[in-house]
C-alpha cells in the first residue's frame, strides 16, 4: 500500500493505460470469438431472432452436428488438419536446416540467398494460379492432400527459414562448441544442446505455419475439387448458405488454431522470456 502511495500519479496512469489497452485488445479478439461460439451452439430460431441475447439462454449442438454432417464438412476438417500438419512437418524439416545454415555458416551468395528466399513471396498467387494448376495436373498432384500440403509448404518456407535462422542465431555458438569439445559429434551437439534450446522458437514457427495452412483459401480452392480443405470448402459453399452454417463454420475454423496455440503456448512464453533477442 505504501509503495502505491509513493509511486507517482503518472506512473499509475501509465500502468492503467497499459492494462486498459491490453483489455481492449483482448476484448477485440475475444468478443467475436465468443459471439461466434455462442451462435454456433444456439438453436436456429435464436440465430434468426433479433435482438440476439448476449448471454445464451439455450444451448444445443444441433447446428454444429448438422453442419458437420453435411457438405462433407467432417471430411474437410480432417483434410485441413492433415494438410496443416504435413505442411508443418515438411517446412520444419526443410526450413530449419536452411535456417541453421544461414545462422551458423558464412558462405558465398549468402545475402543473395536470403533475398531469393523472400522473393518467392513476392509473386502474387493469382498470377501463379493458372500455371500452377496446369503443372499440378501434369504431375497428377491436383486434388490431392499432398499437393495442397506442398503448396502450403512453399508458401510457409520463407518465414520458416528466416524465423528459425533468427532462433539459431540467438543460441550462442559457444554452447555448441563446448559440446563439441566435451565429446559430442556435430549431430549429438545439435540434438542435445541446440535442439532443446531452439524448441520454443521452432514451436513458434510451427504455429505460424499451421495457422497459415489452416487459413489458406486461394491455393487450396484452385488446386482441389473433391479433397477440399475447410476454408476452401467454406468459401465455395458458404456464400449462399444460411446464417446457421456460417456461424458453425466460423466456429469450426476457430477451434483447431486455438487448441494448437494452447499446446505450444508454453514454448511461446519462454520464447519471449529468454530465447530470442
Amino acid at each position: 500500500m505504501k509503495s502505491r502511495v509513493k509511486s507517482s500519479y503518472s506512473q499509475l496512469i501509465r500502468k492503467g493505460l497499459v492494462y486498459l489497452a491490453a483489455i481492449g485488445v483482448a476484448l477485440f479478439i475475444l468478443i467475436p470469438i465468443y459471439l461466434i461460439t455462442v451462435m454456433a451452439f444456439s438453436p436456429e430460431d435464436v440465430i434468426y431472432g433479433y435482438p440476439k441475447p448476449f448471454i445464451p439462454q439455450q444451448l444445443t449442438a444441433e447446428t454444429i452436428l448438422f453442419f458437420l454432417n453435411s457438405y462433407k464438412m467432417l471430411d474437410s476438417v480432417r483434410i485441413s488438419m492433415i494438410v496443416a500438419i504435413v505442411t508443418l512437418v515438411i517446412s520444419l524439416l526443410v526450413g530449419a536446416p536452411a535456417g541453421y545454415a544461414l545462422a551458423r555458416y558464412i558462405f558465398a551468395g549468402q545475402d543473395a540467398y536470403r533475398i531469393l528466399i523472400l522473393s518467392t513471396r513476392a509473386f502474387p498467387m493469382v498470377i501463379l494460379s493458372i500455371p500452377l494448376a496446369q503443372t499440378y495436373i501434369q504431375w497428377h498432384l491436383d486434388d490431392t492432400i499432398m499437393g495442397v500440403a506442398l503448396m502450403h509448404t512453399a508458401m510457409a518456407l520463407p518465414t520458416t527459414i528466416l524465423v528459425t535462422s533468427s532462433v539459431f542465431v540467438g543460441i550462442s555458438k559457444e554452447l555448441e562448441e563446448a559440446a563439441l569439445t566435451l565429446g559430442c559429434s556435430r549431430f549429438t551437439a545439435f540434438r542435445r544442446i541446440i535442439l532443446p534450446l531452439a524448441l520454443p522458437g521452432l514451436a513458434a514457427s510451427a504455429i505460424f505455419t499451421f495457422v497459415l495452412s489452416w487459413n489458406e483459401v486461394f491455393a487450396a480452392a484452385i488446386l482441389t475439387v473433391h479433397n477440399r480443405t475447410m476454408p476452401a470448402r467454406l468459401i465455395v459453399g458458404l456464400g449462399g448458405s444460411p446464417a446457421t452454417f456460417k456461424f458453425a463454420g466460423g466456429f469450426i475454423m476457430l477451434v483447431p488454431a486455438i487448441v494448437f496455440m494452447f499446446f505450444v503456448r508454453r514454448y511461446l512464453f519462454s520464447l519471449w522470456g529468454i530465447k530470442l533477442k
Partner: protein
Amino acid sequence: MAEIRVENVRKVFGKVVAVKDVNLTVPDREFAVLLGPSGCGKTTLLRCIAGLEQVDGGHIFIGDQEITNLSPRDRRIAMVFQSYAVFPHMTVFDNIGFGPRMQHVPKPEIKKRVQSTAEMMHIEDLLERYPAQLSGGQRQRVAVARALAAQAQVLLMDEPLSNLDALLRLEMRAELKALMDELDTTVVYVTHDQVEALSLGDRIAVMHSGEFMQVDEPMKVYDHPAAQFVGGFIGNPPMNFLTARLADDGTTVLVNETRLPIAPETAAHLRATGQRTVWLGIRSENIDPLDAHTEGALSARVIVAEPLGSHILLTVKMGDAIVKVNAHSDSAFRSGQDIWLRPVPEKIRWMDKESGQALN
C-alpha cells in the same frame, strides 16, 4: 598429462593471416599463457588447438599423437569459454557430468566425478540448480568444473576471467592458480590481461599480429622484454622508451644532452648497422626520482603526481617525452616541480629503433 606441440601453424581468414606460422611447445603439466592485445590471433591459435578451427598449414601434436585434423572430441582436450557456455537447459550436475556422460563413463563414476570436481570448485551445494539461478561467478565455476570433470589431457581456457567483476576476478585468479598447481594438466590460457598472465603462467607467449614476440617465464618477459612491443604491452604503467643518440665517442649515448654509458656490444651493434639512435627502455620502478641534480641524472618536470598507496606514480615531462616514474610514498613530489631522474643502470634495456628488437 601431455605435451602440446604447435609446428608452423597458420590460419587465414579471407585475406587476413590471423596466425603466422607459429611454433610453440608446451611441456607436460606446464601452464602456458597466450598474451596479446585483441586481434593478435591468440584465441584463434587456441581454437586451432581445440579443433574448433581448421588450420591452413602446419601440425599440432598432443603427446605423440598428431591431432591436426582430428575433430575436437577426439583430441582429449577440455575448454573453458569466455562466455562460460554453460548449458542453460541442464542442471549444474548435468553440466559438469556432460563430458563423462559423452565418454560413456558408468553412472556411479559420473556421480563421483561430478561430486569431487564440484567440491574442488566449491559449488557442491548448487548441483540441483539451473544456470539461470546462478551468479556470474558461480557460472564461471561450473564452466571450469565441467572442463575439469572431462579429465582431458589438455585444458584450454579462453579469457575465462574476463567477464567477472574486478574483485571476483582476483579471487578466482588465486584459486585457479592453486587448483592448477594441484592438478597435473597441461594448460593453455588465453588472456589480454598482462597481470593475469604474469600471475598465472609458468611461461608467457606474447603475441602480436599473429606472431610470437617472446615466449618466456613471466619475470623474464617483464624484466627482459625481447622487443619494444613486449615492454610496452606488459607492465602497468608500460615500460618507458626514450630516444638515445650515440655520442661522437661511440661508447656513450646522449639522452637530452645527458651522457649515459652504454654496453660495448650494444654500441658495436649500432656502429655496425650505422644507426645513430637507439631506444632506451626503463620501467617506472627502476628510475630513481631525485629532487636535486646529480651526475648522470636526467632533468625533467613533474606534470602529475598520483598517490597510489604503495607508491606515488609520477608523470613527468622530459624534453618531448612523457615518462612514468614510481616515487616512494613518503616523497613530496608535486606537479610543476623540477625533478632529476636516475635510471638504474643494470635495468636499462636497449632496443633497436627500427626493428624494435632488444639489443641486450
